[in-house]
């Protein structure tokens, strides 16, 4: 069934509003992170600047893992119903998650250099993020290697589930192995002041809205692609 004209216009209007909203939220988050939030209580000047990356870094990581959860849910939904829309959700979320996970690794490295003196350490959260990134890459490569759409969707769903189940056990293994990452909400020093908290959570919300917006765009794209395919069939056939 082609998208009904009125419904489509309504949903497009809503998407436009959402896009504008997430643009505003992101700009405000950027301002808060760079200027709004108070200076961190750190000795080195570069350290104080670098500290401001956490507002975006943590929010990016949050979206990266959230996207993974959505891919898992999409996979389960697909296996239960065989409805392509679930597969589209899973795929869209995996693609977005890959980009965000790369963002986590890069922003983390930029922060680590002035703070720890190295670009990378094999700490638990860094390692799990890296492995997560590779899982996403594997997911997309698997999809690229299967031609039949139904089989592609099934395989992707199964891998999405297997990979998601591996997250907690990976986390336990790596935590037992080592940890060095600063705790955001530790009982002792190094935590965030109330003013920082505001920026922190504002970024989380802004990034989440942004994620929903991109998801919507991506799903819409897939739907339009389907429409084009059907129109082509109608004209040719």
């Amino acid at each position, binding site marked *: 069934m082609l998208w009904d004209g009125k419904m489509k216009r309504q949903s497009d209007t809503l998407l436009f509003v959402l896009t504008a909203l997430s643009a505003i939220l992101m700009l405000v988050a950027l301002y808060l992170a760079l200027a709004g939030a108070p200076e961190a209580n750190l000795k080195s000047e570069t350290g104080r600047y670098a500290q401001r990356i956490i507002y975006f870094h943590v929010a990016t990581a949050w979206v990266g893992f959230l996207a993974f959860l959505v891919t898992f849910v999409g996979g389960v939904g697909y296996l239960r119903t065989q409805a392509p829309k679930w597969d589209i959700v899973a795929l869209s979320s995996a693609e977005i998650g890959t980009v965000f996970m790369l963002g986590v690794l890069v922003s983390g490295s930029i922060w680590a250099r002035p703070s720890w003196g190295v670009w990378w350490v094999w700490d638990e959260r860094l390692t799990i993020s890296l492995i997560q990134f590779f899982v996403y890459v*594997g997911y997309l490569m698997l999809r690229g290697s299967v031609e039949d759409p139904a089989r592609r969707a099934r395989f992707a769903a*199964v891998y999405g*589930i*297997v990979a998601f189940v591996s997250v907690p056990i990976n986390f336990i293994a790596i935590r037992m192995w080592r940890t060095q990452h600063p705790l955001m909400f530790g009982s002792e020093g190094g935590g965030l002041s109330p003013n920082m908290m505001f920026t922190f959570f504002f970024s989380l919300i802004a990034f989440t809205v942004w994620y929903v917006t991109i998801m919507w765009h991506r799903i819409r794209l897939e739907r339009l692609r389907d429409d084009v395919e059907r129109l082509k069939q109608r004209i040719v056939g």
Partner: protein
Amino acid sequence: MDYLHKVFAIVWKDIIAEFRTKEMFSAMFVFAVLVIVVFNFAFELRVSGDEVRRIAPGVLWVAFAFSGVLGLNRAFVLEKDRGCLDGLLLAPVDHTVIYFGKMLSTVLFMLVVEVIVLPVFTAFFGVNLFDLRLLLVVVLGTLGFAGVGTILSAMTAQTRAREVLLPILLLPVAAPVLIAAVKATAGVIDGLALGEIAHWLQLLVAFDILFPAVALMAFDYVVKE
């Protein structure tokens, strides 16, 4: 009992096929030894004497994992190439029987390779690996590796990229197995008591149960047309 009987029928089929061709075992074994030899070249320049004990667990498990990937790849690619997978699927058994059969035969091949590699390793590096506790670690680690590897191998055998794809899908997911197995092996080599490496063994056991359970639910979707 009937279920187990069917599973063993598949394992038995794989063993007979292996005895006739001797393809898989020889490839896995030679590759595992080659990995160790390559590591010897790679580390010889900087590691000496007692330090070998510190790198031994890692070298050992990399060799096991890589040769395991070889074995896992063959497990389904062979069936697929010769049209046997369709035959297996037509057999009047639950599809999970195929999963467990294939997993157990892979575990068996990997274990045989590993049990032979251990003395070879001992001879090459002078690290004593004759220890029953180590055997326990090896069995648990292999079960976990093959447990998740078998379902992924069933998928990759049906893709265009085939052999290339399996390690890329498998290694990130199997990372906990490798971490726990290496840590437990190191514990054994360092002469720790079983209680001191128990938490790693528990992790391995959890992994060994969790992934076959997931595979049990998902395997049908992997093999059905």
